């Protein structure tokens, strides 16, 4: 599993489709972290992550820079998320129309507040957080993967923490308001 993304991508393109599992293994947690925050439930994130990987596999030939597989995969996941959200909205409208009942919210994951805050981070911060905490990368590996200096990684992490804490505080305030109402 120590080979580069590029190596596994070339193997897949050469017909060794089973090697795609190493890329799944490498990025599944990262993808789940991003998707759970956006879709709300673990099951939906699971489904969307699978869909994103399958789409990535069938479009590998179109990936011009194999070194940027991770960013490319996140882009695919973003599109899949939008589609899922659209479908869900349509589905909800149909339910409301047919039963005129209040639709139950999604079943939340273990730390949905955190995942939602991560999902709302600007792209460049989110990539760092995802790789560092969900991809098991060290700071220097993150620097290498994103091709930025180590000092920039720690500076950006510091800013990302500040944004995350602010967002979590805001969520808590909103929840309290909700309870008081």
């Amino acid at each position: 599993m120590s080979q580069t993304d590029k190596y596994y991508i070339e193997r897949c393109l050469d017909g060794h489709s089973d090697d795609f599992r190493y890329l799944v293994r490498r990025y599944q947690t990262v993808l789940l972290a991003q998707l759970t925050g956006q879709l709300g439930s673990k099951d939906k994130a699971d489904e969307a992550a699978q869909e994103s990987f399958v789409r990535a596999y069938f479009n590998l030939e179109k990936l011009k820079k194999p070194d940027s597989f991770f960013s490319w995969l996140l882009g695919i996941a973003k599109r899949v998320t939008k589609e899922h959200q659209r479908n869900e909205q349509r589905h909800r409208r149909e339910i409301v129309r047919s039963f005129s009942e209040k639709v139950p919210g999604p079943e939340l994951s273990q730390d949905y507040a955190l995942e939602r805050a991560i999902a709302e981070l600007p792209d460049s911060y989110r990539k760092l957080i995802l790789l560092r905490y969900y991809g098991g990368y060290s700071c220097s590996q993150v620097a290498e993967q994103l091709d930025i200096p180590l000092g920039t990684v720690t500076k950006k992490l510091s800013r990302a923490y500040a944004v995350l804490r602010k967002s979590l505080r805001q969520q808590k305030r909103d929840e309290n308001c909700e309870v008081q109402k």
Partner: protein
Amino acid sequence: MNCAECKEHLVAYIEGLLAESQKQAIELHLKSCPPCRAEAAAITTLYNRMTTNGKVLAQTDLEDKVLSRIVREQNLRLRKADNHFQLWRKIMNSKITKLATAAAIIVIAVLSITFLDKSVTPAYAIEQTIEAMRSINSIHAYCTDWDNSQGEVWVQIDPNTGQEEYYYADQGNLLIVATPQATYYYYKDKNLVRIRNEYVPASEVRFSRFFEDLVRWVQQYNGQLRFYFQFDEELQQEVIMVYGSIPTQGDMKEKEFIFRVDSQTKLPISLEMLK
């Protein structure tokens, strides 16, 4: 060390990236500064919270699920490829949409074709082109794609099935040579050769049955074929123009194309998709 300096290096400190002297300076400052100590604690809490969350999410194993979906999807795609409708679409997307010049088609098989007498037969006999194409066992074509990219292809055909057996395709940066045993991809810019131990088809189009497949689709989708003779300035000879159209079908928009057929050999000279 002041508070600003401390905050600047706090993440690097928590991540264990600082040199011993810097580390000690931070620790000294934290001991005497409650706000910075609170900041460090908040970051550590967040750090631990994300690490825990990461561990929970890592328990999910998507590998087998993704792999089995890939296999399922692959099988589905193969089945779909058998469907004529899909085949038609693939033709429209194929690189082989324009067989450029008269010389581009080389017929190795001996053709036995009765010349069409215009005075006797007012309409063009499609059967003759179908028959002529069936006898082709080798094609050399120049292709122009929608984006105007040029390509060149040589194809050896099994006359019994109409399917390609060998091919050589030069698509600018990529050169492909396929034999029944293996397909070789040569990426010119990278000077890299990739080999796949199987025959990878160049196109879903059956070259030697292209015309008859097309005629069948036109009939199947209630389209029209019209024929007329025209003197071709470029070739300096008379050609048969076969104009075809297929009305809109479901999500497929209407199609229009023109075949130019050599009036002597009855072989298509070019195909242009108008819509």
